[in-house]
């Protein structure tokens, strides 16, 4: 069974947010980050799919539709591993609070919806420890969809799940794709002990809950930046 960073004896703690696009998770983790920073704590924020090194390959693959479910999965795992080995682990060893906008559960959900075998995907990410706290922002599917779709954005090919041939209409494809990812999140929720957030609530209400939970799970005083002598 996989262990959390606390269980593995790391001085740092990792807090992750998960949820559909449009669930408001990025807003919440941003506000959490601001709160922690303003207390003078050692905080680091990391986003999914952001390793500079792998980025050019990922964007080329996506633009030219070169990716299959397997290579889509592997290239995101490469990106994650690069951030994990070069940033997250060293920072957690140095006693940082690491905030992650999406973690391995995003891959578990998306890759499985794309047709990769669940055991294989989990095996690929087996090198990564579990977060110490994971918030799942659960908005009604329609709420998440309308937050994204109401502006009639141009949906990218993979974002809309067009590679799955669910529907020739990108908006319809997006709806079905997000619905399936939502089901995966729900299924993982108990298994991994997600804190399930009612993402239909007001931003402030949610942030209040997030801050209280972080405060009660993590001894924040241990994460103060060392004062210069």
């Amino acid at each position, binding site marked *: 069974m996989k262990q959390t960073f606390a269980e593995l004896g790391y001085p740092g703690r990792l807090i992750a947010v998960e949820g559909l696009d449009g669930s408001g998770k990025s807003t919440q983790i941003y506000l959490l980050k601001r709160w922690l920073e303003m207390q003078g704590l050692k905080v680091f924020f990391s986003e999914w799919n952001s390793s500079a090194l792998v980025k050019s*390959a990922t964007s080329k693959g996506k633009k030219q539709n070169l990716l299959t479910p397997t290579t889509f999965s592997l290239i995101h795992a490469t990106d994650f591993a*690069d951030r994990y080995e070069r940033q997250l682990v060293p920072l957690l060893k140095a006693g940082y609070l690491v905030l992650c906008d999406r973690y391995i559960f995003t891959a578990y959900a998306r890759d499985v919806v794309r047709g990769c075998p669940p055991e294989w995907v989990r095996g690929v990410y087996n*090198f990564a420890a579990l977060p110490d706290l994971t918030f799942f922002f659960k908005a009604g599917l329609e709420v998440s969809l309308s937050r994204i779709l109401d502006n009639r954005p141009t949906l990218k090919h993979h974002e809309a799940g067009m590679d799955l041939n669910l529907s020739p209409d990108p908006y319809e494809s997006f709806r079905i794709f997000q619905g399936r990812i939502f089901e995966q999140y729900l299924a993982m929720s108990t298994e991994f002990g997600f804190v399930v957030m009612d993402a239909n609530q007001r931003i402030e209400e949610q942030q209040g809950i997030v801050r209280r939970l972080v405060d009660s799970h993590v001894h924040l005083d241990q994460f103060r930046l060392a004062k210069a002598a």
Partner: protein
Amino acid sequence: MPRSKSRKNRPKAHDGASVLIPKVTPKRFYGQGIPGIDSDSLTGKLIVVEGADGSGRSTQIARLVQWLEATGHHTIQVGLKRSTLVSEELEQAQQGNILSRTTLSLFYATDFADQLENTILPALRAGSMVIADRYIYTLMVRGLVRGVDETWIRNLYGIALAPDAVFYLEVRPDLLVQRVFAKNQSLDYWESGMDLGLSRDMFDSFLRYQALMRDTFRRLQQTYGFDIIDAERTPDEINQELQRRIEAVLCGQD
């Protein structure tokens, strides 16, 4: 077109008009495989040549392709770092020497998967011979000597198709180093395993790294059962052995 009646009557390369029809044998993936691929549709043969730089891999492959085409088999070549998707990025990353081991393993796995899905499997479906200039074994061995978890890397390469034949060209490290010098006058950073910190001295590191690689290959051989070829012989002798073994594969013998 007359077909060969039996193996004994099969004409040698270059002089025959009759072409051997390779026997289709069942294929399997090492693990879960690739979603949506039916391995029964793969009628071609996948032949892998493994071995260190200087083991004569390229020479042997060039000759095998020559021979296979001469005997009427359409042949496709693949190798490491040749994918459309990530080959350039992988090259850059290697130049900079900034990737950690898990990341590098995954990057190579991406390159492999891209070629597997876009080149190897379509070619096998079309009935071609695919000659791979190294396959997952080199990638696994490189990871293993760098301390990557064996269960993890086996699962990772559960996507791979088990080849019809794998030949590991084995040359002892002290002979390998001579062959490399005869060709390049300098040792390669990665082929010397300098990132492992085995020795500050490049020559010494090369010998120790190549010995480590060979030992790990031999260990994997027990699981994956590939043919270890004594590659300290002359190119002709090695090629004759490879041809003989490949002929057996084409006839559907193990």
